[in-house]
Structures are given as structure tokens and as C-alpha cells.
């Protein structure tokens, strides 16, 4: 009797394990956990968070975890937009880094005018923020028109701004490298007297807004529908072109917010070096979150966790004294492994329907 219940118990346990492993958030969370464990192994004080004081004597939180949460802000915000774009248009936007340069240029131009060392802000910060977001949305709209109206593959369409964006950013700033007054820095650093870095709060707000938008509106549903089957969604009365366009504009809005935070961090913008190769990190975050890079269903929570994972990885590589330029080697290796795991061929080896998928594989149906 006891043997039998034991057997049942172990069966239930096995089933529970299977459920956990099969859960779509398993891979991203497991990867993050492994990275954090590695970090603790390298640096035993990794998880410590202490209260310190900054140069002005205000209380601030100090710790590796706080740094990762803080530095991951842009990545998380961009990953949210990229998830939608990937789901709807079956491709990725590679112009996000260049667009951030444009947004940063617009914000700096508004705040500093033509001076390099202004003593005051030339425009209210809220105006700069809104116009920065507008610039980002215009970039997104440009990409969106090319993708939705002219049916160009997203990566090729965004190649145009990827090529020109940083130069446009420099042009907007008139070739100057102004530094805004330090009061602008509160959005990228700390609000005096409040110990939590402002970007972390902004990230929370953005995540909550995204959560509400996906719960309360049809955005998520429509995006999935268009991504899974463009023609079927049209027959159901959706306008696939409009949905794709909207996802690109949302991506632009995310770029605007991220660009605002980024330019507030050091209160200055160098369009040619700002957020170098962030597009790679963002795509990696989306892939790591368990999203298929060829569109369709998406998993927003996975992308957010993926973004934090990437930031943890970056900070770990920095701790290990890896040269900044060499960091992409490791990320490229991870991207390849992740995408290999996702390919139908590898999946079919682990599934019961292997024979069926092997019959259909190689028909050359994929063409990105």
C-alpha cells in the first residue's frame, strides 16, 4: 500500500517537474538563475545591497543587483517594443540604437540650444521628453510604412535608418557635443533624497502600462493574429498593415523613452557611440525570453526577464575583465545556441511527432 502511494507520489512529482520544465518561462528563468549563481560564485558579495551616500550626501542604494536593475532599463523598455514588432512582422528592428541617437540629439538640441556649456535648460524637460518621444515615433512610423505599406522585410527596411540614424543624430545636434545642466540628470540617476535610482521606477511604470495595455486592449490579440497568419487575420476583418504599423510606432515610443533616460544618465550625447550594438542585445533578450524570432505568439514576461538576463551577463563579463569590444563574441555564441534550440529540426528530435515534421522539413518554406 505504502509502496503504491509512493509510486503515485513520485509520478505526481515527475508530472510536476515536467510541467515546470515545459512552462514557457522555464528557459529564461533557469538561465537567469544560473547566471546569478555563477556571479555569486565569482563574487560572494554579489547579492549584497547597502545604503550609501552619493557625492551630494543624499542617501542612495548601492549594490550589484541595483546596478543591473538600473542599467537594464533601456534594454527592458526596448525589448517590450521589439517583442511586439517581432510578433507582428516576423522580423526585427535593427535601427533601435541609431534611433536612440536621433532621439538623444533632439533632446540635447532642445535642452541646450546652440551652447556647449549652457547654464540653464533652454526648454522645459517635459517638452524635450515629449518631442523626443515624437522623434522616436516618427522613426518608427518611417520603418512601419516601409514594412507595412511596401512589404519590405523588416530587417532590410530598418537597415536604412541603421545606416543613417547616427549621422542624423549628429546633424540634429549641429555637430556639437553639449552638456546639459546637472538638474536634468535626475531622470537617469537619483532624485535627491530618494534612494532608488529613477530608471528603475520608470521601468516599473513602463512594465505596468504594458501589462495593462495587453490585458485591457486587443493589442496583444491582434498582434498575435497578424503574426500567426496575415491572410487569415485579414479575412477576419483585421487590417494587418495597420497592426504592423502600430507595433512599429510603439517600438518608436519605447525608443523615445529609452533615449530620454540614456541622455539623462550623463547629460550628454555622442551620437556615434551612444548605446553601441544595443540592437543585438535587444534581439537576444527577445530570443532568450522564449519568443520565436519568426513571429506569431509572444511572451512579454519572458522578454523582460531575458533583458535582465542579458544585463547580468554583460556585468558578469565586465567583472571578469573582458574587453568591451570582445563581449559580442560570447553573446553571439549564446544567440546561436538559443536559435539552434528553437529550430524545428532540433525540436523534432525531441518530440513524438518527429516523423511527421521530418517529412515536411526541407520543403524550403522558410524565407525570411
Amino acid at each position: 500500500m505504502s509502496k503504491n502511494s509512493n509510486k503515485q507520489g513520485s509520478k505526481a512529482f515527475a508530472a510536476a517537474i515536467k510541467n515546470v520544465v515545459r512552462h514557457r518561462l522555464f528557459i529564461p528563468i533557469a538561465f537567469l538563475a544560473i547566471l546569478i549563481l555563477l556571479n555569486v560564485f565569482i563574487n560572494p558579495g554579489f547579492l549584497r545591497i547597502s545604503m550609501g551616500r552619493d557625492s551630494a550626501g543624499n542617501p542612495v542604494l548601492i549594490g550589484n543587483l541595483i546596478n543591473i536593475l538600473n542599467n537594464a532599463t533601456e534594454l527592458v523598455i526596448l525589448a517590450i517594443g521589439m517583442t511586439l514588432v517581432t510578433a507582428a512582422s516576423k522580423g526585427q528592428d535593427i535601427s533601435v540604437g541609431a534611433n536612440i541617437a536621433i532621439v538623444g540629439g533632439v533632446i540635447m538640441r532642445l535642452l541646450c540650444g546652440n551652447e556647449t556649456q549652457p547654464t540653464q535648460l533652454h526648454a522645459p524637460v517635459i517638452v524635450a521628453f515629449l518631442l523626443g518621444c515624437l522623434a522616436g515615433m516618427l522613426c518608427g512610423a518611417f520603418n512601419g510604412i516601409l514594412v507595412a505599406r511596401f512589404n519590405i522585410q523588416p530587417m532590410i527596411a530598418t537597415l536604412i535608418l541603421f545606416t543613417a540614424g547616427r549621422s542624423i543624430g549628429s546633424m540634429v545636434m549641429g555637430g556639437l557635443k553639449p552638456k546639459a545642466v546637472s538638474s536634468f540628470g535626475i531622470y537617469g540617476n537619483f532624485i535627491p533624497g530618494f534612494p532608488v535610482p529613477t530608471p528603475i521606477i520608470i521601468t516599473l511604470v513602463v512594465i505596468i502600462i504594458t501589462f495593462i495595455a495587453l490585458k485591457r486592449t486587443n493589442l496583444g490579440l491582434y498582434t498575435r493574429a497578424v503574426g500567426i497568419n496575415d491572410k487569415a487575420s485579414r479575412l477576419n476583418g483585421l487590417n494587418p498593415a495597420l497592426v504592423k504599423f502600430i507595433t512599429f510606432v510603439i517600438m518608436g515610443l519605447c525608443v523615445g523613452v529609452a533615449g530620454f533616460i540614456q541622455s539623462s544618465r550623463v547629460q550628454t550625447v555622442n551620437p556615434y557611440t551612444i548605446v553601441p550594438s544595443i540592437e543585438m542585445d535587444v534581439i537576444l533578450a527577445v530570443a532568450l525570453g522564449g519568443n520565436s524570432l519568426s513571429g506569431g505568439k509572444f511572451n512579454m514576461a519572458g522578454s523582460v526577464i531575458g533583458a535582465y538576463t542579458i544585463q547580468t551577463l554583460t556585468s558578469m563579463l565586465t567583472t571578469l575583465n573582458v574587453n568591451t569590444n570582445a563581449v559580442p563574441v560570447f553573446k553571439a555564441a549564446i544567440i546561436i545556441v538559443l536559435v539552434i534550440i528553437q529550430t524545428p529540426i532540433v525540436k523534432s528530435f525531441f518530440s513524438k511527432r518527429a516523423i511527421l515534421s521530418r517529412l515536411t522539413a526541407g520543403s524550403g518554406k522558410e524565407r525570411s
Partner: protein
Amino acid sequence: MIKMNKTLSAEGVSVRRGRQPLSDSSFLLTITISMFIAIYALAIAFLGDKGFSKIQMFFNLFNENAALIVIACGLTIVMISGSIDISVGGVTALICTACTVCLNNHGFNFYTALILALAIGLAFGIIQGFLVAYMEMQPFIVTLAGMFMGRGLVALIEVNQIQVRNEAFEKLSGSRIIVPFLGDYNKKGVFIPSKLEYGVVVAILIVIVCYLLLKKTRLGRSFYAVGGNAQSALMMGINVRKTRFLAHVLCGLLAGIGGFLYLFHTRSGSVQQATGLEMDAIAASIIGGTLLTGGVGNVIGTLFGVLTSGIVLLVVTAIGSQDPWWPQITRAAMLCFFIVLQSIICSRKKK
């Protein structure tokens, strides 16, 4: 099937061309060539005093762009087969740095450096081709990873910019071919013959070889068939996976040659080298009439694509705007124009 016949047999194409004077591909090619000639003529007419009327200027266009021509040929082949490769810039930077380090510190000579360059290019081509063709991964993701891998490896080898310090190599790289009968008179009225770099000869040879490969060989025709419609190509008995794989391997090999020519021209290596080269090469292919969707294009168009973007950049610089941002923006605007033009032509064809 009709479409396949049309693309697969070389004779079929020529017969149909007789009836249908301007196909889409040749329409785009005509636009590119006439644009090149028009811009060059305008440059001679209005900017003649800035050196555009000199014949050497024309040859300099080739001298500067020899590596790009070779790399763009590789991209044209990959794009015809319906795939893409954006790792070529990273591969070029890797080849430049690796060869420079080997030439300086490990006693490599010209030939061993060339072999190293070809090996690096082939290695990237084979790995990416395998992942794209046999693992059915998206080419853009695979080669994006390849691009970052290439650049990252450069930083692992050498972080700073380094110059080639190898006398034999420098001597060979500095030597020029004197073009017979062509040249300019300088201010004193002395005749200076035009000079060509050795790399240009290699580049032109490769364009011819690629042209013949695409037009006359079975492999070349199967690139078109696979790019045009993989399903039909499979039904016709073409090994689709192998064809895709070979397209990537060829592109890798040409990236190896192109990377070596780049080193031969610049004689240095650094992490930031050849940034955006892949975009230039893709732009040149698109401007030359290669369709992004695959199945259409040829390398002669690509050659003119490179020359057109080269002359546009020269004109933009010569017009005298000192601002450093205009070349990139002009390049992107031109890319945008041709991409939209292609898309319009494609959608018209569907109707």
C-alpha cells in the same frame, strides 16, 4: 513550372528577352547605369575643376572600391539564392587584423597571409551556410551573430589599430599598374599616365568569373531557381539545401578574397575597420537590380551599383559640405529610393 523554365535555361532567357525587351531586372539595371552616367556627366560639367574631368578619377573609383566590388559579388550570389549575409564587414575586419598580426609577428609572407584570409572567409561561409541551409535558421540572425563574432574576435586578437610592417608585402601593395595610353596632363603640361592597383584586376576578374558562373553553369542557374521558388526547385530535383549551403560558402570565400584586398589597400587592421561594409555591399547589390526576395539579379549590375554609390559619395564630398554626416545620409537615402522602387515593381508584377 513556366517560370522555372524561364530562369533555369540560359537559352530560354535570351529567347524571351527578344520578345520582352525590358524585364524587371534589366529595367533596374538600366536605371542604375544611366544614373551612373548622368551623375558622372553632371560631375564633369559642374565640378570639373575638382578633379572629376581627370581620367585618374575614374580609375580611383576602382582603386578605392576593389574590395567592395568582390564582397558585393558574394552578397549578390547569396541574395539571388534567397538568403542574406551581413557578416562580411566583421569578417573583413577579422581578416585584416589577423593577417596583420601574422605578417608582423609570426613571419607570414604574402601567400600564407592570403591562405589565412581565404581560410577565415571559408570557415565563416561553411558554418553560416550549414546553420542556414541544414539547420533551417534565419539567415539574418545567423549572420548577425557572425558579424558580432567577427568583430569580437578582432578585439580578442588586438584592441588597438595596427599597421602592416612587412617590407615585401608593403612593396607589393604600393606598386601600381600603368594603364597604356590613358592619363592626364598636370599643371605644367606633363603627361602623367593613369595608375591602377593590382586589386582592381583581381576584382574585375572575379566579376567576370561570377558572371559566367551565374549565367552558364548548372550551379549558377540553380541559385536562381532556389531563390525564385524553393518549392518548385525542389520538385525539379535541385538539392535546395546544398545549393543554399554552396551560396553561403561562395559568399564566404569571396568575403575572404575581398577582405584580403581590403588589407592590401589599407595595410592596417582595427576593431572599427570596415564598419558598415555589409550595408554598402547590400546597397550596391540592390542598386544593381538584385531583388531582396531572391531569384533576380546579376553581378554586372552590382559592379555598377558599387560605382554609382562611389561616385555619389565623391560628389557629396566635393560639393564641399564639411559636415561629416552627409555621406552616410546620402547613402541611406539612395538605398531607400532603390528599395522602395523594387517594392513597387514587385507589387506591380503581382497584379
